[in-house]
């Protein structure tokens, strides 16, 4: 294994996401390569300290898990009445009804406002356009700018004029 190949697999190795053969190959390479070992140690230390600060892993309560499993195991019943009853259960009927009400509301809003009110752009939209168009500025920071411009909530949202 080359150092380059090892570094490509390093993140997956750290996350224990490699298959057995690749995992063993990376392990073996790390035993013999000081540079990659140092790289790995630096990455691990940084990752772990940042994970401790930024990440919070939450486990689903066991009562919810049990409920889900129970629901999955529940036997299906057939026939018109049971099926209709199933459709009218709050879990299905309520979201469907809510969606219908929402659609009616949106249609009404669009109908009433499309002529008069122009869309409102977000402050974030203007900032991103500015950053994209001044990336060559010496006052900019490449890593921060790249983070900002690739952290789009909705990619393809900022379509240029034709």
């Amino acid at each position, binding site marked *: 294994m080359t150092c380059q190949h090892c570094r490509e697999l390093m993140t997956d190795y750290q996350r224990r996401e490699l298959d057995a053969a690749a995992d063993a190959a990376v392990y073996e390479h790390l035993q013999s390569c000081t540079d990659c070992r140092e790289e790995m140690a630096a990455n691990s230390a940084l990752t772990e300290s940042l994970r401790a600060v*930024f990440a919070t892993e939450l486990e689903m309560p066991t009562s919810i898990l049990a409920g889900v499993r129970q629901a999955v195991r529940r036997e299906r019943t057939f026939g018109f009445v049971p099926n209709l009853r199933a459709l009218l259960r709050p879990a299905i009927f309520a979201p469907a009804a809510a969606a219908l009400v929402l659609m009616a509301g949106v249609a009404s809003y669009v109908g009433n406002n499309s002529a008069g009110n122009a869309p409102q752009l977000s402050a974030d939209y203007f900032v991103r356009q500015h950053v994209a*168009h*001044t990336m060559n500025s010496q006052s900019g920071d490449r*890593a921060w700018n790249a983070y900002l411009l690739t952290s789009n909530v909705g990619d393809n949202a*900022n379509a240029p004029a034709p």
Partner: protein
Amino acid sequence: MHRLHNFSPFFLLLACAWLTVVAPAAAVAANDGRVLYTQAVGADDSVSYSGTLTSVVYEGDHAASTVARIEHKAPNRWRIWYVAPADAYGRMIVSNESLTYRYEPSRNRVYSYDWRNTAPGILAPVDVARVEANYSVDTGPTSSVAGRTTTSLSLVSKHTGALVQRIWVDKQSKLILRRENYMADGSVSAKSSFDGIRVGVSLPQDLFSLTVPSGMTLVSGASYAKTTTNTNDLVKSLDFKFAPPNYLPNGFILERGSVAAHDGVNTVEFVYGDGLRTFSLFENATGQLPRFNEGESEPIDIGAASGKYAEVSGQAIASWNAGGLNFTIVGDLSTKEISKIGASIHP
């Protein structure tokens, strides 16, 4: 007159001493600063490196930061792996400065961004002459950054006397290892610093290849408006009358413009700069202020109009309505400068 006559030999001697010792030394120091600055802004065109960079951006009463592992192969290959913040953890960016691929393992997607039309200036060398025309480059003391000896350079506006940026330049490679940008009141607006760096490393080209791994899908990332320097034609193409600013801060000139359609709104943007600082002026015919996050903005007076001001992602942004148009300014400006530019626009 008599007193002056008595003292004149002394002053003459003092002037000679200043001319022979102090002035040349100051001139040499200033020249050293300019030379070092020129070397620093172009250093990554010839020096490869691998390091960890922490960036902090201050926005009002809070700050945002990124921590990224950066591998750079000169002149233009970049590989940036984010370890913070949490929403970017694991994100990998590979770029040749024209095209950027963003790898999102969590979504099995690769997003592509094409900068060739959006920011053509990124491929051009920094206009050092313009920076020097508007800023003095003062050499400071040496200090250690990421275990390497650096010389600090302060860029001070020749027009206002304000310190705008400080950079710490690696003595050996001339790479910029630390950077601080300052607001008009002297406080830090953004800073970045290498926590560790290995300079002159040999990085294989394959590390920077723009490829899509099996199992991942290539999709287009957000696109941004194409820019042009032909701003006259841009203005003619608008469906509303563009109102230009009649005042610009000293040293600023119009650099380029663009028109973008977003949510059915055509917005024109003009970018102004002084070599170091930049700002964009946006105009559209909505007559609507943009949406700010709750509690993010504060009122600002622009001429006779009342608008909103905020600091978003390290940029000052102010917006106001006048004459049926919406005006928005974003950039490295103080509220005073924004108000003055805004008040000079007469729609």
